[in-house]
């Protein structure tokens, strides 16, 4: 396949568990070298989608291609080229990070150097500590390291920083950015808006198994082409007005207020952020 073919191509993906349909017709194309974010609340179908792409689950219907393979076939050639960070994955209690990485490296035809991966994941000080003595954050870094040791071209990160303190999150973000700089393709799920905004080239907002919006985070935020004007009226109520033409609206509002001899308290003009779009789209109607 050519290098310009998408890394992931999903069309009309559906997954049903008995009566419950977790994924209800998803279409995604992830380009090579892109960081793609699946953003949505818990239970939106993010993990189900990713686990179908990783080859863990069979889909009910739809077309799925990952690096040109159908992941349901579980081809060993595909698994050699992807790295998976699961939402929660365990490891033998009595193994050290260095031993685990050496063992994992042996599964792959062209692994990265174990020492290099230890350094990249920030695990050098704990390299010879048994995993049962590692902290939660250190174990998460080991998850990253194990996913990277095979030098995959495509990396799946399912909620990679859930439970991290702010400093650890920043460190994880740096790692993800450095992977992107190496030309890796990354599919990331998260329910943190700032994470999607900080890392993803493009984001799909997903809820109840459907994609509500898709695009670069900046465009999703402001691409709706409207402004939000907020002020407190004479009755003390907070009023929000949305408009495509903030200039005219402000002129009207301020003109009326001045004519009445009032002030528009707490007046602000803003453009919707990713968070606004997200909250608007995922709000329970």
């Amino acid at each position, binding site marked *: 396949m050519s290098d310009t073919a998408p890394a992931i191509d999903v069309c009309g993906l559906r997954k049903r568990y008995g009566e419950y349909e977790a994924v209800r017709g998803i279409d995604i194309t992830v380009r090579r070298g892109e960081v793609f974010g699946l953003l949505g609340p818990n239970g939106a179908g993010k993990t189900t989608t990713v686990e179908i792409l*990783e*080859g*863990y689950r069979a889909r009910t219907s739809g077309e799925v291609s990952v690096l040109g393979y159908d992941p349901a076939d579980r081809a*060993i050639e595909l*698994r*050699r080229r992807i790295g*998976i960070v*699961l939402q*929660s*994955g*365990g*490891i*033998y*209690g*009595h*193994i050290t990070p260095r*031993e685990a990485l*050496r*063992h*994992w*490296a*042996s*599964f*792959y*035809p062209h*692994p990265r150097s*174990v020492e290099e991966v230890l350094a990249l994941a920030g695990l050098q000080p704990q390299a010879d500590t*048994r995993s049962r003595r590692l902290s939660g954050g250190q174990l998460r870094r080991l998850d990253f390291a*194990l996913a990277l040791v*095979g030098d995959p071209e495509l990396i799946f990160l399912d909620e990679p920083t859930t439970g991290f303190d702010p400093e650890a999150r920043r460190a994880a973000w740096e790692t993800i950015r450095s992977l992107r700089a190496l030309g890796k393709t990354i599919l990331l799920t998260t329910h943190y808006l700032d994470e999607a905004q900080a890392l993803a080239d493009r984001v799909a907002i997903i809820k109840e198994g459907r994609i509500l919006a898709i695009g670069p985070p900046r465009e999703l935020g402001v691409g709706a082409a409207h402004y939000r004007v907020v002020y407190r009226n004479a009755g003390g109520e907070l009023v929000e007005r949305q408009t495509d033409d903030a200039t005219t609206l402000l002129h009207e509002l301020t003109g009326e207020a001045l004519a009445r001899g009032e002030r528009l308290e707490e007046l602000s003009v803003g453009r919707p952020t990713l968070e606004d779009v997200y909250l608007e789209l995922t709000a329970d109607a």
Partner: protein
Amino acid sequence: MPDALGATNPVALSWRQYRLERQMFWRNPSAAFFNFLLPLLFLAGGGAILSGDQHQLNKLIPAIAAMSIMATTFTALAYNVVFLRERGVLKRIRGTPLPTRSYFAGVAANAVTNAALQIAIVVLAGRVLFGIGWPQHVLELLVFVVVGVVCFAALGVAFAHVIPNFESTPAYVNAVFLPVLFISFYVFDSSSAPGFLRSIADALPLKPLIEGLSGAIVGGSDLGGNLDALAVIALWGVFGLFFAIRGFSWEQSRT
């Protein structure tokens, strides 16, 4: 370190997995205890009580040998599979290019090694400490150990599917292991056991295994005379393999 020469060859990967399993086994003190020390303590305790009674010692050694096989395969694998499944280790391995067969070859070879080591220790202890001769029928010993290991290993993996979480594993395993052990030991030892207990023990795989090992180690019926016992173990093995494969789950159930 992985090297260029056949680094991802399935046989080489099985061998690496086997070595890792051995390493992890010895690093886990409680597993090493239950697998090695417990049967040896039984042997020492029973041997001390029965000291001088050669007839009883002749029964003790094969019984402990059979129990060792059950402990190193059925009990150990049920524990391991549940632990690795609930901790997410199996799921993680499933996402790598390690071939499934290589993984299970390594895990199974680990259980076989433990069973073989145990049998060697028990036979040696019988020879050195309790004046029992070297095994009478080596072929019979080999056949019963192999069939016994396959049977109890498969049953252990199959039984793991029934156990809902790691915390309840000891309860589930002991609820099977201890009654089977007591009924089988009792019926094997006592000629006056009630008929219904005898029928139960004969239908379960442990007592046939004790009989086969008894014939092989201390003499008595040879392989030809114990074919019915072998058939019972083999049937349980087929049953175990069927459910071990059919019900296998790589991850925690999400309910």
